[in-house]
């Protein structure tokens, strides 16, 4: 076991995977000499050489498109999109191509690749360095979307993503990179894609969340316990698609109250799907309304501190909503 932050864990895991299998290579903007703007691939160029650490032209569509071709010829590319906000030029390659190659060829071809992208706000990234993109891709069958939020999950899910026979969008919340630390086993292991995790057990309500919000929800749950004696169960979905409905529903069945917290724009976000699933399955077992807490429906997160804070759900507001629902 070693104590690490999220970004160091991703770096180490990717390095281990590349050491173990020479089909794995990385490509993206500034991944070579610079080692990635977040330093995820620091030292890779020296260790693995130019053929496996590809500084691509500044062209996101072909970063994904070229990786698709590599995957179709038996390599296991890990494509880095520098910020999730810049992934939109590659939308067609992800949605119309990567996600459909197996389906449209009736299972003849496949596209085992990973697209890594740092997402999320709270770092003064403003409109174009803060976005949540999981809902766009969670809507698309054929690609898996994962959002690990702890060093332990980051390692296990990156390994699982690289070994997955289908394309995986691996989203890394950039505020968790250095903020969140944890014990990480030194030996290789996988955290299965499509399996949610109960990060905190409780009886009075269920909070379903992911990303940076997981950590805020855990803080709020702790405060709720101490100040009110109410216990919240916190479910980390970890995978946006395919969603682990069973774990979510089991928890809500137990507590009879559900709240969904996410930082994406509230409307049509992943939380909407989670809330709808709970409503569909557990309507008559609920003791309160399903609460959805997300970002406001403005185009994207602003830069100035008061504006950014106003956008992001924070521990205080999450706590208030949790308490209100628990007492309902």
């Amino acid at each position, binding site marked *: 076991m070693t104590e690490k932050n999220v970004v160091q864990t991703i770096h180490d895991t990717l390095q281990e995977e590349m050491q173990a299998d020479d089909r794995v290579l990385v490509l993206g903007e500034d991944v070579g000499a610079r080692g990635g703007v977040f330093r995820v691939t620091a030292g890779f160029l020296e260790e693995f050489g130019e053929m496996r650490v590809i500084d691509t032209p500044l062209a996101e*569509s*072909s970063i994904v498109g070229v990786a698709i071709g590599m995957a179709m010829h038996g390599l296991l590319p890990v494509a880095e999109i520098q910020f999730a906000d810049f992934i939109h030029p590659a939308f067609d390659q992800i949605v119309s*191509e990567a996600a459909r190659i197996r389906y449209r060829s009736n299972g003849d071809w496949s596209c085992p690749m990973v697209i890594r992208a740092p997402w999320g706000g709270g770092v003064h990234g403003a409109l174009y360095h803060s976005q949540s993109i999981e809902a766009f891709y969670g809507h698309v069958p054929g690609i898996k979307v994962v959002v690990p939020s702890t060093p332990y999950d980051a390692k296990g899910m990156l390994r699982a993503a690289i070994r997955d026979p*289908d394309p995986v969008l691996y989203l890394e919340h950039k505020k968790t990179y250095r903020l969140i630390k944890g014990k990480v086993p030194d030996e290789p292991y996988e955290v299965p894609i499509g399996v949610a995790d109960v990060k905190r057990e409780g009886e009075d309500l269920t909070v379903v969340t992911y990303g940076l919000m997981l950590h805020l929800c855990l803080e709020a749950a702790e405060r709720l316990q101490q100040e009110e004696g109410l216990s919240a169960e916190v479910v980390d979905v970890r995978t946006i698609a395919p969603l682990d409905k069973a774990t979510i529903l089991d928890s809500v069945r137990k507590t009879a109250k559900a709240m969904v917290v996410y930082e994406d724009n509230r409307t049509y976000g992943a939380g909407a799907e989670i809330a709808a699933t709970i409503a569909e399955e557990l309507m008559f077992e609920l003791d309160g309304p399903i609460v959805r807490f997300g970002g406001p429906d403005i185009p994207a997160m602003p830069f100035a501190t008061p504006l950014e804070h106003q956008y992001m759900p924070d521990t205080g507001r999450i706590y208030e909503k949790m308490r209100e629902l628990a007492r309902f």
Partner: protein
Amino acid sequence: MATRVKESRARHRRLDLSDDDLLAMYRMMVTARLCDEAQFRLNRQGKAPFVVPVSGHEGCQVATAWALRRGHDYFVPYYRDMAVCLTAGLTPHDVFLGVFGKRDDPSSGGRQMPAHWSARRLNIVTGSSPIATQIPHAAGIAYAIKYRGADAVVASWFGDGATSEGDWHEGLNFSGIHRLPVVWVCENNRYAISVPLSKQMAVEHVSERASAYGFPGETVDGNDVLACHEAMKRAVDRARNGDGPTLLECMTYRFHPHTSDDDDRTYRSREEVEEAKRNDPILLFGNHLKQQGLLDDERVEALRAECKTLVDQEVDRAWNAPDPEPESVMRHVFAETGAEDGDEDLESHGTEAVPAEPPRADRAEEEEGDGR
């Protein structure tokens, strides 16, 4: 005359094409033309909801695809490339399984529209309808080939309209930077559906764009089979020898509307189309073979009749082939674990073995033996 014939024959011999190769190429072109005529007939009969014509493009398609090694090199086509894919190893039966959306359609099992070619066993790479999206894939496959130190070559075909897409630029740029073993083949028929070249680009030739990517570009008469083949062979050799990509532009013409749903009378005159048909590659190549003494009118008719019988048979056979099972709509979203799908034969979407004709498989083995 005799001298001309001799020179001309020397020309195809220099290209390592035997007389039999030329006849097989001609037969392939005629087969594609007849498949096209049959699929349009089926469309008008209401038996085929949507078809994509190839007529007019057979010359440059067969000539360029012929320079690759079947089952070894990679074919990354677009929807107009029926003759490319027949040359790569699909059969007329496969074509009509696709036209009718049948279960055993090798391209997609009836999931995609017809003409969205694919067959992994033949290295025909699955494509979509959005234009030029296959270009970065071809670059990625070529990168993987280089990475593995393999000697395969990738060729990707596209129309003139594709060259306006960002993906086209990004893919060619990437291939130039890494000197990848890929040949980019533009089938320039002067129209992207209705939009003429003059509204697609401000330069005269697509091939001029190659200089921006640091590799050679060449424009050839796309209706001259030997010229196309010669240029393609040069490009394939360059790619296989590690000298990087080539952009080859074949000037040709599409005789039919863009698809069965298009009406080309709205954007080009009948006179223009009729004029273009005077340069029909099948006509020109047939004349060449007659000059060589390899064909005469009678043999042309006999060959056409033979191919037509075959195509008609394959239409009937494909029409009577099984449809996809409705429940199969849920399959292949993600990899299947196998056990729970025991009632389905995972291999059932394949086609028959690679057909013997044209005589390319033998040649591929010889080439493999030459230690390159």
